[in-house]
């Protein structure tokens, strides 16, 4: 009988995990901030533009 060993996986890279998490959190922050500004300016623009 032979022992079946599962295929070896590379070690989990926690630094890469944290880097990606941080980069996505930063990006999300910038996008949400940008959208807040955009929606504010759209509202202002719609108030000055006659229907």
């Amino acid at each position, binding site marked *: 009988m032979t022992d079946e060993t599962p295929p070896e996986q590379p070690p989990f890279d926690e630094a890469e995990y944290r880097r990606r998490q941080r980069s996505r959190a930063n990006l999300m922050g910038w996008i949400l901030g940008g959208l807040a500004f955009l929606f504010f*300016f759209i509202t202002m623009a719609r108030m000055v533009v006659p229907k």
Partner: protein
Amino acid sequence: MAQSLTHGETALPADWRDLFALTKPRVMSLVVFTALCGLLAAPGNVHPVLAFSSILAIALGAGASGALNQWYEAGLDAKMKRTAGRPLPAGRLDPQTALQFGVGLAAFSVFLMLFAANWQAAALLTVSILFYVFVYTMWLKPRTPQNIVIGGAAGAFPPLIGWVAATGSVAPLPVLLFLLIFLWTPPHFWALALFVRSDYAAAGIPMMPVVAGETSTRRQILFYALIMAASAIAPWPLGYTGALYGWAAVVLSAVFVLLSVQVGTRRTGEGDGMRPEKRLFAYSIAYLFILFGAVVADHWWPL
């Protein structure tokens, strides 16, 4: 939050670069440009913030369509050299993330258009996204060599949406611009399909050169180039544009037809470099950019 690259129980979050690549940024540049030209060529003035937001909505809608297209075609993309490096077939992103990203972006783009412009533009944007995903990607592309002829309508929407975002109504000129992109799509894509034919054949996509053969494809490129040239020039004699656009359309279309004649009348052998086809493909992109630039220039400085 969506995750990718599963590693046992733990998963790495998707990299934003892969999500960006999912939106087909190069295709998006042409979409944004033609939409901007449609918006700028429309009568009246649009508030810069509302114009920017409308174009952003169109760009996000195009990005969402690209993401949903890549989600659906991940299996096919893996079989083609040209697309095997995309995030999904390369395994850098999981399909669930791509689907959530595409649907979320599509919904947001329509909401932004509704908020910044009008319901007519939002409705057109919705139709263009649904048409690209359901009619072109899921229905036509895997079934018929006419896929890009009918599916070309999806890429023809942006100038029409830009115009409607600015005015709230449809007019003959943006419809002619829609027709121009619609007729431009077959020679543009078939020129590409001729030099990546083996890729499409390997993936089992019934592109025209794979199904009907090279000779028939070349003849059809020439046919579509001729009617495209007629539709490109049409706005001038019909009185919707001036001489500046008219002469630009005449000269640029003449070159397009000449390059199409080269492609349409030649035969290739083993190891052919396909230079005329590559030249036509590259020129077709420049053609659309310059012609749409001429629409705006003509609107601003009529001769």
